[in-house]
């Protein structure tokens, strides 16, 4: 992916932590970086890592050697590396999306993180209102705090509108946690057998399996990152999505404009950095099941407004430990 070089404008390198594949999230990072670069009159390149520490390192090394205006990194896999390389190359600007290292952020690093938990909370509100069995569940990839941003907040949102709701959270784990649809399906069926009729799918490439299970058992599913409703129209209610394009553009502009770095910015419902499909301008054509329930959508908007205004504070499970 080498767009014509030598345009003279600023150059940006986007480095993923893993192959982009159908990972819509990483793909969004690529298009986001490209669009932001174009908006700033520059160009962008993408280096895909292959899910190993070594490949991430050699991609950063190669990027640093090319001396671009900024290097955009994505996901928590770069927590340590971003600090290490930012400190080793003080003249090079870095951006880290979707995560931020603990401690002080070096001056040449800017973080942009999402409040997925706010969007997940809204999905929970939908689930709490839709459930007939008063049981909801999440199938997530790995049992780490990061994934609890979705699972815990989903349960929280459901309980906020229906206190009787009980919650199940299962994790794929295994050899291929974000790409094992068969296992993800098995887990979703297990959740469904345990009585849950609302299942939140946070398993990356495994989501397809969860949707299959939803179709088979008649449960309703919830997707992440992008609009996944077309994959199983009628079975998928809504999605918690991240607007990476918004965040990347924001941070790259800040670099080009020479504003001070060392910052960490969180993008939630208020910043429109994370949201749900039904609240975006594409909602009408989304094929999401929620669109048939305007009364529920009204409750969702209400909750969104309360979060934005600070009336409701959704806790960040990562901060909670």
């Amino acid at each position, binding site marked *: 992916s080498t767009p014509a070089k030598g345009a003279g404008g600023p150059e940006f390198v986007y480095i993923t932590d893993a192959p982009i594949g159908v990972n819509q999230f990483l793909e969004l990072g690529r298009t986001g970086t490209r669009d932001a670069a174009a908006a700033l009159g520059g160009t962008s390149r993408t280096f895909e890592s*292959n899910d190993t*520490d070594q*490949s991430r390192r050699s991609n950063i090394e*190669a990027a640093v050697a090319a001396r671009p205006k900024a290097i955009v990194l994505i996901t*928590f896999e770069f927590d340590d590396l971003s600090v290490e390389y930012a400190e080793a190359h003080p003249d090079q600007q870095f951006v880290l999306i979707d*995560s931020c*290292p603990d401690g002080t952020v070096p001056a040449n690093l800017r973080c942009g993180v999402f409040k997925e938990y706010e969007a997940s909370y809204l999905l929970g509100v939908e689930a709490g209102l839709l459930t007939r069995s008063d049981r909801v569940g999440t199938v997530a990839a790995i049992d780490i705090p990061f994934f609890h941003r979705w699972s815990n907040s989903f349960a929280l949102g459901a309980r906020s509108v229906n206190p009787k709701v009980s919650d199940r959270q299962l994790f794929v784990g295994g050899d291929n946690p974000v790409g094992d649809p068969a296992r993800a399906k098995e887990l979703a069926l297990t959740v469904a057998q345990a009585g849950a009729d609302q299942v939140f799918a946070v398993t990356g490439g495994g989501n397809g399996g969860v949707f299959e299970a939803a179709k088979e058992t008649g449960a309703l599913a919830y997707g992440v990152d992008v609009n996944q409703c077309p994959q199983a129209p009628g079975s998928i209610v809504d999605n918690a999505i991240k607007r990476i394009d918004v965040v990347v553009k924001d941070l790259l502009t800040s670099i080009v404009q020479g504003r001070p770095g060392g910052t960490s910015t969180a993008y939630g419902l208020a910043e429109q950095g994370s949201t749900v499909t039904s609240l975006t301008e594409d909602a009408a054509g989304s094929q999401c099941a929620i669109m048939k329930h305007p009364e529920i959508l009204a409750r969702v908007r209400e909750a969104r407004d309360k979060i934005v205004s600070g009336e409701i504070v959704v806790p960040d499970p990562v901060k909670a430990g």
Partner: protein
Amino acid sequence: MTRWARAVLSEGTVVAVTLTVVIVAVLLLATGYDPVSVYATMAAGSLTGAGLVSTLQQTVPVVGLTLALCFSFRAGVFNLGGEGQFVIGGCAGAITALTLPGPGLVVIAASLAVAALAAALWAAIPPLLQEHLDAPIFVTSLLLNYPAIAMTSYAVKAWLKDPDSSLMATRRIDGSRRIGPLAAPGSGPGRAIADLFGPDSTLTLVTSGLSWSLPVVAAILAFTIFVNTRLPIGLEAHVLGLNPRLARHTGVNVARVVRVHMLIGGAIAGVVGALVVLSSHYRFIDGGLDGTGYAVTALLVVLLGRSRPWGAVVAGFFFSALIVGGQAMEREYGLSSYLSIIIQALVIFLVTLRLTRAWRTR
């Protein structure tokens, strides 16, 4: 040429590599790429400048793990448990480095020792099961990888998790307890080398990019050769690998040789795990060590190098260069780096076919 060079760079290997280059070139041409420039990119990306540093950085642990496997394979024992021993060692080393008080060097040494011990204990289970329950080491060593990974994963989650990080990992290891570069850029030797050879010279890059893990693995190499050629138990392992019945008939204590070689191999794998943690990750990350793919590469290397230590070095470097070169290719051309996996697989496949030998020996 020395014996090892001949062994590794035998005609068969050269033919296999050449044929692979041709096959992949055809594949590239068919998909509209210029093979010459793709190969040039791979070579430049893995054998020069930062690429060479990356290659060497990978070679060190791969060779270390290969040497670990050499011990059991030479004794005719298929030890597929390298990955588990590697992870256990890394975890034990990290815990030691995080908790033990004392001066940096001492703690580093202690971490390596604890890693060796923990991984050796883990590696002792398969021979024990074989001696007492007739369970083949091949099976049990492979099986034990999964509990090893699950155990360390759970340990991180339940007790060791860094509360401030979104990584599923331990806290970061203090700077003084890390294994640093051979010549850090700011340090005295680092500046001296940079002044002498220039700041961008290959030597400067390599000495600043490679850590003191390199001499540790070099010492392991020397140790391996010493055990193989100069210790009675090394000779016994060799015979055991060639013909176990002969070993039993000439008074070799087979169980002991197997046990000792599994223990040594496990200890080495553990040390390598700790080396990666202390010199590169600076913390134990859940999935961080098994995710490197080093253990799998090492298994390939030991099979191809037929358990010869120098074969491990040459083949280890070759495979590391392929992996790093594959990434350079991907960056430059957007070609899937899986092409480099295909290349690796083809080389192994073709080497094994021994194309230089006649097809039908009757």
